[in-house]
C-alpha cells in the first residue's frame, strides 16, 4: 500500500482501503470474476491513475474506465466534419485545446491549421464569441464539446450572441448527454458492471434525482463522487457497502459541490437552446439514441451543421486503434498493440491518447511501468490456464 503515503490524509486512506478489502472479502468474488465498478467520468480516471488507486484495491475489484472523456468519444467522422468546416475559406474555427490534436481520417485540426486554416484555441465559448465580434468579415465557428458540464456554457453563449445580434457566429454542436450513455452501458451485453462512481460536475448541473432509473430499473448502486483521491476511495467504499448489503441506491458523496436539484439556471439554458437528436454516433459505443444535443428551431441559424451543409459520414477508427474497446472497458489500454510505441500523447493514433482524461493517455502518463508488469503477469496466467 505504498501509494497511500501520497494522500493528504494517509491514515484515513489506509482505513478506507482496509474497509473496502474486508467488505469485498465477504462477497465471494475472485480475480477471475471480479466486482466491476465503472467510473463514468474522465476526471476520475485521471485521479485514479495519478494516485495509483487501482493498485491499492484488492484484486477482486476491477475498475472499468468509462466513456466520460468527451474528446475520446467523438467519432472520426465528426472530427472530419470539423476539419472540413475549418478549411472552408472565410471561416475562423475556434476549439478547446483538448480537441485540436484528435486525429481524423484526413488529419487533425492542428494539421489543417498548419496547412493554412484559421484554427484558434480558446478556453471558453465566450472567447469564440469575442472572436466573432472582432472578425465581422469571417464566419466564426465554435466546436461545442462536452457533457452537461459544458453544454450550459455553449447555450448561454448562443443566447448572448442572439441578444446582442451577432450574426457571424455558429456552433458545431457535439454536445452529449450522460443519462442515455449510462443506459447504453447498462444494456450492453458484453459489459456487466456491478456499480458506478458517478460524475461530480455533470451532476452539479443535472441534479441527483435524474439517475433514479439506475437503481430502480437496473438495480445498480451509483455514488456521485468528488475528485480528491479520498473522495474516490470513499465512494468506492460506499458502492461496495451497498453491494454487500444487497442494496441499490443513488448516493451523493460530493455534497460539498453537488446539490440535490442541480443547477436550475444551467438546466434552463440547455433546455431553451438545445433539443435531443434522435441518435448520435459515439466512438466505440456505436449509435446511442437521444444522446446528442442539437439546436432547437428558434436557434437554428447558429447551427454550423445547417450553415455548412454537414452530412456526417461514419468513418472507421484507424485499423490498429482499439480506442473503442478501451472506451467500453473491454480491453485495457496496454492491451492495444501500439500503446506506448507507435501511439503516444505526442503522436496519438487514437483519441484516447490525446486528452489527459483519456484512459490511454492516463495509463501512459502514470501507469506504464506497473501496468505493463501486470500485463506480463496476466499473459503468464493465460499460459498457465
Amino acid at each position, binding site marked *: 500500500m505504498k501509494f497511500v503515503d501520497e494522500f493528504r490524509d494517509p491514515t484515513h486512506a489506509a482505513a478506507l482501503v482496509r474497509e473496502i478489502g474486508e467488505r469485498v472479502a465477504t462477497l465471494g468474488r475472485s480475480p477471475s470474476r471480479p466486482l466491476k465498478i465503472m467510473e463514468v467520468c474522465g476526471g476520475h480516471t485521471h485521479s485514479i491513475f495519478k494516485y495509483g488507486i487501482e493498485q491499492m484495491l484488492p484484486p477482486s475489484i476491477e475498475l472499468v474506465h468509462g466513456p466520460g472523456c468527451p474528446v475520446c468519444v467523438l467519432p472520426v467522422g465528426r472530427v472530419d466534419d470539423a476539419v472540413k468546416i475549418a478549411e472552408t475559406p472565410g471561416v475562423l474555427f475556434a476549439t478547446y485545446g483538448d480537441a485540436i490534436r484528435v486525429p481524423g481520417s484526413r488529419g487533425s485540426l492542428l494539421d489543417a491549421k498548419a496547412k493554412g486554416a484559421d484554427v484558434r484555441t480558446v478556453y471558453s465559448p*465566450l472567447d469564440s464569441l469575442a472572436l466573432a465580434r472582432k472578425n465581422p468579415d469571417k464566419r466564426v465557428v465554435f466546436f461545442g464539446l462536452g457533457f452537461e458540464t459544458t453544454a450550459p456554457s455553449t447555450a448561454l453563449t448562443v443566447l448572448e450572441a442572439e441578444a446582442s445580434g451577432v450574426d457571424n457566429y455558429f456552433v458545431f454542436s457535439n454536445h452529449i448527454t450522460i443519462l442515455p450513455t449510462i443506459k447504453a452501458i447498462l444494456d450492453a451485453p458484453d459489459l456487466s458492471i456491478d456499480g458506478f462512481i458517478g460524475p461530480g460536475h455533470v451532476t452539479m448541473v443535472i441534479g441527483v434525482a435524474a439517475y433514479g432509473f439506475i437503481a430502480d430499473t437496473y438495480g445498480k448502486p451509483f455514488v456521485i463522487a468528488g475528485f480528491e483521491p479520498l473522495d474516490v476511495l470513499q465512494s468506492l467504499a460506499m458502492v461496495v457497502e451497498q453491494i454487500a448489503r444487497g442494496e441499490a441506491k443513488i448516493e451523493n458523496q460530493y455534497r460539498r459541490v453537488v446539490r440535490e436539484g442541480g443547477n436550475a*439556471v444551467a438546466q434552463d439554458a440547455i433546455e431553451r437552446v438545445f433539443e435531443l437528436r434522435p441518435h448520435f454516433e459515439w466512438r466505440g459505443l456505436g449509435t446511442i439514441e437521444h444522446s446528442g444535443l442539437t439546436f432547437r428551431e428558434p436557434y437554428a441559424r447558429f447551427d454550423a451543421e445547417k450553415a455548412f451543409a454537414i452530412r456526417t459520414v461514419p468513418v472507421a477508427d484507424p485499423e490498429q486503434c482499439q480506442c473503442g474497446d478501451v472506451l467500453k472497458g473491454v480491453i485495457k489500454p496496454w492491451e492495444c498493440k501500439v500503446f506506448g510505441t507507435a501511439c503516444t500523447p505526442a503522436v496519438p493514433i487514437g483519441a484516447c491518447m490525446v486528452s489527459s482524461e483519456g484512459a490511454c493517455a492516463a495509463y501512459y502518463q502514470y501507469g506504464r511501468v506497473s501496468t505493463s508488469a501486470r500485463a506480463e503477469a496476466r499473459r503468464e496466467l493465460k499460459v498457465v490456464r
Partner: protein
Amino acid sequence: MCLGIPGQIVELVDETKKLALVSVGGVKRTVNVACIVDDAHPASGLVGTWVLVHVGFAMSRIDAAEAEKTLALLEELGEVQAELQAMADGERA
C-alpha cells in the same frame, strides 16, 4: 475541461450581462456568473465569493476550504498551469 478550476470573484464587471472578474491562482479573467445568481443570491453580493469555473462560467459556489483542496488536487494532476495558460491565451486569441 471537466474538472473546472476554483477562483475568487474580485469585481462585478457587468451586472446585466452577468460578468465578473475572477482571480484564479492570481490570474484575472472575466467569467460569466449567470449560473450562480438568483433571487436569493444577487450579483451585487458576489465579490469575495469562491466559485468553481468551467470553461469561463462559474458553475457552483464553493467554500474557501474546498477551493484550496481542489486547487491542490489540480496542482498535483499537473492541470493548473495548462488551465491558466489556456485562460490567458483564450482572451488573447
